Structure formats: C-alpha cells, structure tokens
C-alpha cells in the first residue's frame, strides 16, 4: 500500500494503556475490538498505522482476494502477507465497504465481476475507523452486522457473494466531536482513554521523537528496528502461549465480583475481562491469570460498560478504579 515509512510502534512514548490494548487485541482478536477516545495529538492514528508494520506475517491462500486461511492439509498453494490494517476513511461509500461489482469491467466489457471491498481486505486483520463518532449511521449498522456474523453478504445485479469477514474493529475519536451510539460502544471489547502526557520529560521525549521521525523517517525507522523486533517477538510468543494460559477459579471469581461491584450489564464484560487478562498474562510470559493481570486490564475492559450514573460525579475510569480497590484491596 503506502510506501511512506510509518512511525514505529515501539517509538511511541507513554500512552501505555493504549499500546497495551492494541497488543492484547493483536494477541487475541476475540477480545473484540479496541476503542480509543481522547485528546487530540496523542498519537491515536499513529499507533494504529504503526500496527501493520509491527505484526508478523500471516499465511493466506495464494492469490486470494479475501485473505482466506489455507486448509490444514496443505492442498493449496499459500503465500505470506502482512496482516491487513485497513483504514475506513470517512466519506467511504457503502459499496466500497461491502464490495460491489467492478464498475470498470461493467463499463468496458459489460461483465459482472465482484470487486471485494474493505471488509474483504480486513479479513483476519484490523479495520480502523478514525473519528469513529463521525461515521455515517448506515455504515455503522452495516459494520455491526458483519462484525456480529463474521460474514459479509452482497447481492447485486443477480450476483450473490458471501465471504468471511472477521476483523478486529479499532475506532478512535475525540469525545468533543460527539458521542458514540451505545450499540456501537458495546461492540468494542476494550476502551482506552488517552490523555496528553502532562509531565515535561515525557512531553519533550514525544516531541523529539516525532521531530526526528519527520526529519528523516528512514533513519528513524532503522534506529528503532531492534525495539520493534522485541515487541513483535513478544506478540508472537504470546500468541503461541495463549491457549495454555490457565484461568484459575479464584481469578474467575474475582472477575465476577468486580463486574458485580460495577454493575456492568450482562456477561460480556466478564468474558472480555477474562480474555483480556489471559492475553495480558501471555504477553507478560506468565502461565496463569492472577489478580494483577485483572487489575491492569479491568479499566480498559469495563469502563465503557458501566451503566451511566451521573449521580456519581467521577468519570467511569475513577469508578472502575474504586471498584478494583474494593474488590482486590488497596
């Protein structure tokens, strides 16, 4: 796609919660998407764009336009490709999202040929929506539908196409631009708040790295290659270990207790909290989930699932932290 060098993931200063959430989603896509909301100029888009370069390659059926996973028996030719991180630009039309008939071939040869859309490109990867709160409602509905079913169905000109479309939805936005519909909010497994760092040393570091990158992108990327490799290896080994991570009963009980204390709706919060904690344990190289994993990922996994209680003047982050202190002890 784009040949311009992207800012390396490892070089993003501060914003630990955001980076961790992205890594967790990369280790276990089933946590179900990441929502990043917060201040301007905190490197939200930069982090997502950096993700593509960070992830290890994946194996697909050779020439597949749908990033299909090759069958295990080795009966088809395969090739390696980058894990797709597909941008859903604002102003995208529906036909480009779902895919539609190839207009060019219809015009030139009068043929019906399906041209896969962004959903096909994002299969087994990430679909990124910047300014997600500005996205048109009908596109949002469509995305939710596909994200829920894992399959995209297009019917046009007597052609019926269905192809798998499983992707991690990543949305970013600024709360000042507008709120997110509750249905969409709930679709995201993790929700991260980003704030501009307020200590001067971090701020200086952010500015210096950014400036160095813009002055000489290639050299900057080269200088960070080693760090980038470390993060990549962390993801690869965490993925391998993920299935073996144990979730002992006490951890499950603690998670349940936390969700009850917060009054978060439904079981989704608990499930996400468990999966997130497991991915975090895998990233840390631990063999089983314990309290500190739960503590660290509870804010991201739960803060957007709280029933709104404006009686409590504190924001949802504070409420989650309070509940953590209650359940786990200070």
């Amino acid at each position, binding site marked *: 796609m784009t040949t311009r060098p992207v800012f390396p993931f490892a070089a993003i200063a501060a914003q630990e919660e955001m980076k961790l959430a992205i890594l967790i989603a990369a280790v276990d896509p089933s946590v179900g998407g990441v929502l990043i909301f917060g201040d301007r100029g905190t490197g939200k888009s930069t982090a997502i764009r950096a993700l593509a370069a960070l992830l290890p390659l994946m194996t697909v059926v050779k020439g597949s336009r749908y990033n299909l996973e090759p069958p295990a028996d080795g009966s088809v030719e395969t090739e390696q490709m980058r894990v797709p991180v597909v941008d859903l*630009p604002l102003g*995208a*039309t529906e036909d480009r999202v779902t895919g539609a008939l190839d207009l060019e071939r219809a015009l030139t040869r009068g043929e019906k040929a399906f041209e896969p859309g962004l959903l096909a490109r994002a299969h087994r990867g990430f679909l990124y929506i910047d300014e997600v709160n*500005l996205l048109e409602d009908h596109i949002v509905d469509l995305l939710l539908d596909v994200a829920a079913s894992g399959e995209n169905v297009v019917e046009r000109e007597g052609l019926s196409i269905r192809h798998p479309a499983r992707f991690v939805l990543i949305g970013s936005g600024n709360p000042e631009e507008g709120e997110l519909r509750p249905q969409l909010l709930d679709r995201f497994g993790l929700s991260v708040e980003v704030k*501009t760092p307020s200590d*001067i040393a971090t701020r*200086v570091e952010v*500015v210096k790295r950014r400036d160095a990158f813009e002055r000489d992108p290639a050299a900057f990327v080269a200088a960070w290659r080693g760090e980038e490799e470390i993060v990549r290896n962390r993801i690869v080994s965490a993925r391998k270990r993920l299935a073996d991570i144990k979730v002992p009963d006490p951890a499950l009980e603690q998670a349940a207790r936390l969700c009850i204390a917060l009054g978060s709706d439904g079981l989704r919060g608990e499930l996400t909290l468990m999966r997130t904690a497991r991915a975090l344990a895998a990233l840390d190289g631990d063999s089983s989930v314990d309290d500190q994993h739960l503590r660290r990922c509870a804010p991201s996994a739960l803060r957007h699932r709280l029933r709104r209680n404006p009686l409590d003047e504190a924001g949802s982050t504070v409420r989650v932290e309070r509940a953590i202190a209650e359940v786990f002890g200070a």
Partner: protein
Amino acid sequence: MTGDGPGMDFSPWALAASAAALFAVDPSSLGVALRAAPGPVRDSWLQSLRAMLPASAPVLRMPLNISDERLLGGIDLSASLNAGRLIASRGLLAEADGGVLVVAMAERLGALPNAVISASVDFGEVALEREGLAGRSPARFGVVALDEGAGDDEGAPASLMDRLAFHIDLSSIPPREAQNAAFSAREIAAARARLNTVTVASDMIDGFCATAMALGVQSLRAPLLAIKAARAAAALAGHNTVNDDDAALAVRLVLSPRATQTPVADSAPEEQPEPPQEPPEPPQEPPPQEEAESKKPEDEDISGPLEDLLIAAAIASIPRGLLEKLAINESRPLAASAGKAGALRKVARRGRPSGVRSGEPRGGARLNIVETLRAAAPWQTIRRHARAEQKTLPEQGARLEIRRDDFRVTRYKERSETLSIFVVDASGSLALNRLAEAKGAVELLLAEAYVRRDQVALIAFRGKNAELLLPPTRSLTRAKRSLASLPGGGGTPLAAALDAAGALADAARRKGQTPTIIMLTDGRANIARDGSAGRGKAGEDAIASARLIRAAGFAGLLIDTSPQATPQAGAIASAMGACYLALPYADAAALSRAARAVL
C-alpha cells in the same frame, strides 16, 4: 532574523506577514487560521501569500458546501460513459497537492470535511473509497482556514485549529497598514531549499516544550509546530541552526495565541540562576496559578536563559483579554449542549439537503432521480445482456433499466423534533389547592408546544409512583383529555417522577429528539424512591434524581405550584438545572414566556 528580517517588528500586521512568509516556506507542515472579516486586509494578506508561493503551486479555494465527491474525488461519469472505461475525477484535496487549500468560512466547516482535511494534514495523503474507486493520492498541502466567526463561540473546529501552526487575527488591523509581501518568491524558494538542512539544538526543543507547558498549552502538536516554524524562520533568515530570534518568533506566532494561562515568568525569581545540577523533581502537572519557584526547577535541562527568553517573547505577545475569555469558557457547564432548539441531525426528511446515499425511498425519504440515473448508467450493458438471455421479460419499452440497488435518496439536515415532557404533580398536597390551576398551566404550555409542532408526553405522579399517562404524541386533543381526567390525591413520589421523566427523555434523545422536561410541583416530596413514606429520605432522593437529569443535560422548567414560593421546589429546580418559575406570579403570558425560553 538579524536586523533585516521582519522579526524585529512586532506590530500585528508585521506578525501576520511573518506568518505568511514562514507558511510560504513550509506550507504542508505549517498552516494558518486567519480570523478576519472579508475585506481589504484579508485580501492583501492572501495576495502577499500568493506572491510568495511558487507560481506553479495551486492555491485552491474550498467552498463551504462542497460535496463529498468533489472533495475526495469520484467517478467522472460522463467521461467514463463516453470513453467506455473508468475515468476518475480528482478531488479538491488531491488537486491541492503541493499547494495551498484555502478553506472558506471555516467557522462553519462540517464535521466530515474537517476530519478529511485533518487526516490529509497528518498523513499527507487522501484515502478514497467511493463508488468503485479505491486508492490513495498524495495530498500534501498547506491549509489557510478563513475564519469569519463573529463572537468567541464561533470559530474553526478545534481539531483543525490544533493542526494549524499560526492563529492570526487580522480584525484589528487598519487597511492602510496592510502592505505587500515582505519577501519575494525567490527568497522564499531559497529558504525552501535550505529548510532541510536547518538543525535545531536539543535544548531548544526542551525550551519549546517548557514554554508550551508554562503557557498551559496541552496539545503536543503545538511545540512540534513551533519547532517547524522556527526552522522555517531560520531558513528564511539564512541560518543553519535555529537561533534565539527564530525561536522567539516561532513562540510569538505559534505558542502565544494558544496560551490558556499566564506564565509566571515575569516575576523576580526568574532571574535567579538555577543550580544546573539540581536533581529533577518528578514533574507533575502544574496547576495554573502555581508559584514561580515551584514551576522552574522541574527539570534541570530546560530551565535556563533560553526558556526565559521564549517565555518573555510569549508574554509580550499574548493578546490582551484572551485569558479572561478562556476563564469564562472553562466555567461553562459541560452539559450546556442541551439547547432549546433541536440538535442538528442528519437522518431527516426535510431541511437542508446534505448529500445522497443509497437506499429505498421509504419512510418519507425522497428519491433523488439524477443520482439514481447516474448510479444505474454504468450497468446498462450488463442488464441488457441479462435481459436478452433470460427472455422471460419482453424487451419492449425499457430503454433504461433501473433496479432497486440504484435507488439513491437525498439526505437532509434539520433541527430535530422537540419532545416536551410534562410531569404533573397530582398528589394530595397539590390537589387540595391548585391542581386545576396546574392543569390550566399545562394547557397553556401544550398550546405553545402545538404551535411549534412539538411532541408532548404527560407523566403524572401521586400515591406511590409516577405513571406515563400519555406517551409522546403530537395530538393535542389526547393530551387535553388525559389531563382533564387526571385524579388528585395521595403522596408525592417526586423521585420516582423525576426518574420516569429522565428515562423518557433519554429514550427520546436516542430516537434523535430533543427532550425538554417541564415539571409542575410544589416540591414537597414525601415518598422516597423505594416507596417508603417520610419527608427526609424522600427529599434526598428527589434531589439525587434531579441531579441525574442535570448531568444528562436535559433542559428543563420547574413551575412551583405551591401557594407561596417554597425553598424545596427551588432546590429541586437548581439540582436539575432547570429554570424556576413560581405559579403564583405566573399568569398566562408569563407562563408562555417561560415556556418559550425553555422549549
């Protein structure tokens, strides 16, 4: 800027002209927000900018109501049909590549163009996924946002402002002062060539960051933009390294206009030399009015003469009155967004057209015939073939085959509908004296709502709970009827009533309506939320429920129906952030005035 540069002259026009020159040196990194009414001053600024840019650089003006297609690019349908192959038309953003995009009336810029422009500024390219076209085109351009906003509330979107280096206000400059460009296009071109070789010392970057902090500038884009501006200034002045003058100019132009607090640098302690090896304290966010002493030694690296110099430059150039304005803005409540007029929404059936989307003309949506034909045009060959093969349908007649998929409907923006939720106290305390009068007041307000074609809903509360007597409707008759048959007597479950009103308002807001809560009560709650009797608990619950409504940001009006104005009702009104009106003083005219103010 030694001697001959414009940096020594700090009159408003000279600063504006300096910004134009620096912008001309590095348009795609820097950017300008130009606040001015249309007029000779703005024209000469734009002219002098044009004169400094290379002749080949496009300077394109983006009109306010540009279509998505024109902005991003799309299919040139007539050319495509004629040529028999796909011909794309470039969007304005791609056309502006290498030049300058002038955004007209930026204070009214829509969310989508704003987001798209911002993304192009960040990544230097525009992504297109429209109507069979996909791709990225380079879009590295400088942005000049023309902001004609009048008051303090009006202005270009904050996310765009954050990305623009220079925020210039030309409105105070008399036309005679606006002269020609300070630099020739040749000088600018030379500076452009030098730009990449200009270096910035590390402590200079520290200085920019520290100055930004001292001025209370949160965004990290600001110091980055200041660095770039300083580099452009150095290139223009012929320096290889950014020197103090370049940096001071950058601070004046980039950081000062963003200041949200006065740096505490003009006091005496600034002059005390800091011990250079003092261990850095863990830097915390300094509260705005912190003492100078505690602010300075945050980090040994960044304190020093340079920062002092930059801060001094910043102080000198902070526009007077700016900080007072900011203080006012911050004290504004967060939920003030609940206006009296319906909020703008896009899924409307009438109002101003705003784009087209595919969909069927159902539920009142209007078919856009031209766009539907456009959508159908490319598929005609295929469809004709298909029809010929099938032979099931007679071929006669249909020259143009239009299918359901082609339907395009016009989207509209309009003010959303308002829902007035009447919450009427029918408890014993009220029934005794004034239920009839309360009913009369509601009828008056209903008439008001009817004139505005608003929806109304009616909640009555008495005994142990609140009851939705009338779900949202536009029928005035029904409202009157259910009001007339409203019996009185029993306790006052105020908390339950407020909760019910809040829930209904929340549901209405989710449907895209703008709810307003109109409460008629004497405020003497005596039934708590759990149904138990007792004034103390009931009062607390009522206040708590009222706060919920305020926090949700619903607009409200509380009409005190007790014979004398009571503190309880006033307390409820202020807890729910509603206007308070005592019925004893309210005749029909006063009531309808109050309703107009809130509805």
